[in-house]
């Protein structure tokens, strides 16, 4: 999985999932078209279609556990988000939807400006900034395999059905 694209930048810190997708859009029973409401109440972020990489401020995705935030980013067209840190639940939700949470240090983060291009290479765990440095980023090894090989996590756990049953029998 290699994403080469223009970057969009939302530099504010602590962007919570209510900003990514306001609660009034959570009344849906599917995921169709949810991207049209991405950042709907934050027009000043000036996020437009095209870039596949979003650069966001520290502690991105804090607050509500709504996976709708990840679905909205994906549906809008983003494939990776770069920040100095992500909230735990948001990071989990991202990985489960193949939206790459790329953590970089603040020096690299500061280099990323609107209008620049970058490449995120999951296999190499590398972020290359066009006309700039290339750095590696950490990612959960299991999630990486799941995304690269299209491995289904529920299918993986279901393969342990006998072990789960044994646990249930031992802990009634």
């Amino acid at each position, binding site marked *: 999985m290699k994403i080469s694209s223009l970057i969009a930048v939302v530099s504010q810190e602590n962007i919570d999932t209510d900003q990514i997708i306001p*609660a009034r859009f959570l009344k849906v029973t599917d995921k169709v078209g949810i991207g049209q409401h991405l950042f709907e109440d934050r027009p000043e972020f000036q996020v437009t279609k095209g870039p596949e990489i979003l650069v966001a401020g520290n502690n991105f995705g804090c607050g509500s556990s709504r996976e709708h935030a990840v679905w909205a980013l994906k549906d809008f067209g983003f494939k990776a988000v770069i920040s100095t840190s992500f909230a735990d639940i948001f990071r989990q939700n991202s990985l489960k939807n193949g939206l790459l949470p790329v953590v970089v240090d603040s020096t690299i983060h500061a280099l990323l400006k609107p209008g620049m291009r970058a490449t995120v290479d999951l296999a190499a765990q590398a972020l290359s900034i066009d006309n700039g440095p290339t750095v590696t980023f950490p990612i959960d*090894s299991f999630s990486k395999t799941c995304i690269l090989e299209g491995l289904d996590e529920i299918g993986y756990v279901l393969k342990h059905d006998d072990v789960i049953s044994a646990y249930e029998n031992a802990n009634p």
Partner: protein
Amino acid sequence: MKTLYDKIWDAHVVVPETDAPAIIYIDLHLIHEVTTPQAFAGLKERGLKVRRTDKTVGTMDHSIPTSSRSLTGFDEMAAKQVQALAANCAEFGVPLYDLNSTRQGIVHVIGPELGLTQPGRTIVCGDSHTSTHGAFGALAHGIGTSEVEMVLATQCLLQRKSKNFRVKFDGRLQPGVTAKDMILALIAKIGTGGGTGHVFEFTGSTVRALDMDARMTICNMSIEGGARAGLVAPDDTTFQYVAGREFAPREAAWEQALARWKKLPSDDDAYFDQSVTIDGSSLEPMITYGTNPGMAIPLTARVPQPATREDAEALRYMALEPGQPMLGHPVDVVFIGSCTNSRLSDLRSAARILRGLKVNPRVRMLVVPGSYEVKRQAEAEGLDRVFRDAGAEWREAGCSMCIAMNGDSVPTGKTSVSTSNRNFEGRQGRGARTLLASPLTAAASAVEGRVADPRRYEGVA
């Protein structure tokens, strides 16, 4: 040499962590209408069943009306979502406490109330405030919808272990200072990302002295400090609360459970990756002034000078000036409710201030009990009369104005004092300005039409 978290984790490992995350068993899965339709759709696509319908419980809380229990004439999309939960629960055999059930309520209020929430259990729900249940010494955290689907299908989660973070509060709280003020003080100290990657354990004499409702308020907002879960070690206060509840163990099973639960507290020499200590006796009532729960100050303090561009933007959104005192700031709406502060003791606190007084004419005040049962008990004590006589609206149970999905919202540009958990931009309605505070502070502010100090009221100070 284990923490409470270590012990619960170890007892629930089905497959240990290797290159792959551990497979962890889930004892209780709570579900609601907003974060489950896509998960049930996934199950149907795969042709899977719900593995343990006896460990899964559904209720309706987020998008439901609180003005009545009827969906007739209500928001069509919300009604459709509520009906989808009912259809899914019926199809998959999951027990559901719907709008007509006497067990209905905010998912984090009914779990403890029914005795489903028990020490040592692993509890998940597609809602970040699942951390509430940690007050019982249960490992409880929010999950996304993909994880909801996984737990429905397998009763397990793929998890990597978090780190341990001890939060110690020592000393006796001053009159008028509550659990809400403790947790706001913590988040103000460590920031909204301070607990990322960690599980909090709340310890110390201040925490020990709290009743279960207050412990739930603290654990509830663990997620606002970045920790997915927060824990309080179970003790006699916990056991007394659980004993005799509908789904609590009985007789011999109770004795066995009690023996197990008493072994849960962290060992004396257990290792914590991080620790912070707060002097409980020096805390004051707290209030937020910005657009995240970490932007909180003592009620008597002045709005701080912005340190960053974000701080300045937050003050602009809130229409607050640096250096301005919070006390006396005009208030348009007061909301008493949410999974943070909608339990009986919260309503009693608010009623203590409001008894015999009137809500200021400039203020709309909404009191929304956390569950059908809280509502019933409050009415049996006459608390509904206190609120109604004061001019507040007394509602049916639900999440209501905390998340503003159901039509209960704060108008654009208006300021609310809210007992809920999030003051994010637009959280209580587009353009709404939220000040988070305790039920005492909220009630005093309703009376005065301005941010007010509850310690000036009889029976508080």
